[in-house]
């Protein structure tokens, strides 16, 4: 019981960001507050470009952070909690069931202000639409490389595969995208 209470207090301190000792210089933030603040926007963006859902992207991201929050004691010890939360979002955003559930939940939320991604320019929207039509892994690699500006090594870590696999996906994705976009833009 006492252990559970202490764990709860630690978690609360982590959420409030009041545990300054949890922050390490030049290291990944160990308080949930700092982690959340630092990663939120790019994780929502990743959810958006991969799901295409302006209504559900924030929910997908929040759900991933919720899982991180509930397991923060463990996840905070990872070398890179950001990679973990990106993996969760990348997988959920490309799962049709998860994506649709998040969208419906967001649309049905009653009594609270819904957050939705503002509309992007038509050109950008069509590029991401083409990305989403790629095979799942290729779409994830493109989103992480270009939207999230992750290096190949980090993408490999996020997607739990080798760097060579990432390079292969990247190459194939770009080849397919270039062909498709050229075809679509042909008069």
């Amino acid at each position, binding site marked *: 019981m006492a252990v559970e209470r202490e764990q709860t207090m630690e978690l609360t301190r982590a959420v409030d960001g009041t545990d300054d000792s949890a922050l390490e210089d030049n290291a990944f933030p160990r308080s949930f*507050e700092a982690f959340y603040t630092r990663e939120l*926007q790019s994780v929502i*963006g990743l959810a958006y470009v991969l799901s295409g859902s302006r209504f559900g992207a924030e929910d997908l991201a929040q759900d991933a952070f*919720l899982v991180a929050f509930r397991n923060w004691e463990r996840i905070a010890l990872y070398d890179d909690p950001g990679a973990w939360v990106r993996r969760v979002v990348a997988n959920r955003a490309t799962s049709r069931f998860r994506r649709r559930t998040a969208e419906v939940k967001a*649309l049905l939320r*009653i009594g609270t202000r*819904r957050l939705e991604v503002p509309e*992007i320019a038509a*050109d950008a929207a069509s590029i991401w639409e083409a990305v989403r039509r790629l095979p799942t892994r290729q779409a994830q690699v493109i989103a992480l490389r270009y939207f999230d500006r992750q290096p190949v090594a980090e993408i490999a870590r996020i997607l739990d595969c080798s760097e060579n696999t990432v390079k292969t996906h990247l190459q194939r994705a770009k080849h397919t995208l270039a062909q498709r976009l050229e075809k679509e833009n042909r008069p």
Partner: protein
Amino acid sequence: MKTLEEKLEQASKDVRHQIAQMPARPSGAMRGRSRRHRVAPVVAGIAFLLAVVAGAMLFLAGNAQTTPLSALPILGLDLPSWIPTDATEEESAEGGYRAISYYLPSEGGEHPLVVAKLRLRGIPVGSPHESGRWWMNRTDYETVTVRGHEARLFTSEGDYEVVWRESDQVVVELSVLSGEQSVKREQALSVANATTTLSETEWARMLLLKDVIPAGPTTTATVGNLSRPEYDAV
């Protein structure tokens, strides 16, 4: 001519720019969310029992009373079974929009949720806002007729979107989404055709949420036996 890399960079930049404009939900909300996730099954169970009891009472009374949404006299869909859940506006002058969400309650099926989101946009014919809309730049649509108006029907992974110009000033965009199953084309079209026919003045008024909803920030309507806040006018 931009290279693929440049296009991807630009598309990424656009998304980052838009995301940066979103208000951030504070991390403290996680505690509430976490609590909700833990208590959700219990609440769902209690709600189910209450619904069964209340439903039985209404059945015995022989009459399921539904109070009309008097604050929204000109909103929406003329489909009694669809329940409005949410209304928002965003800079509803030119280029802005007003959105109303509806859902179709479960009929006990395995896939209960179908959501219709109706967006009313103040977009004059030929305005820059018109050329920037996604449906202007897509060619993969089917032309259909919605209450005498020519409309574009788009489909994506089983969901449907219908877009039509209601007047010289107003465009309606309707998304029909389902939680788990594909939405039937006919269902999307029936929702589109059930939108209320309004005069030019009424359409203009619909784009001004505050004019239509003069009451306080939250209006409560009674739907069957359940009382719920219908929308949060923000």
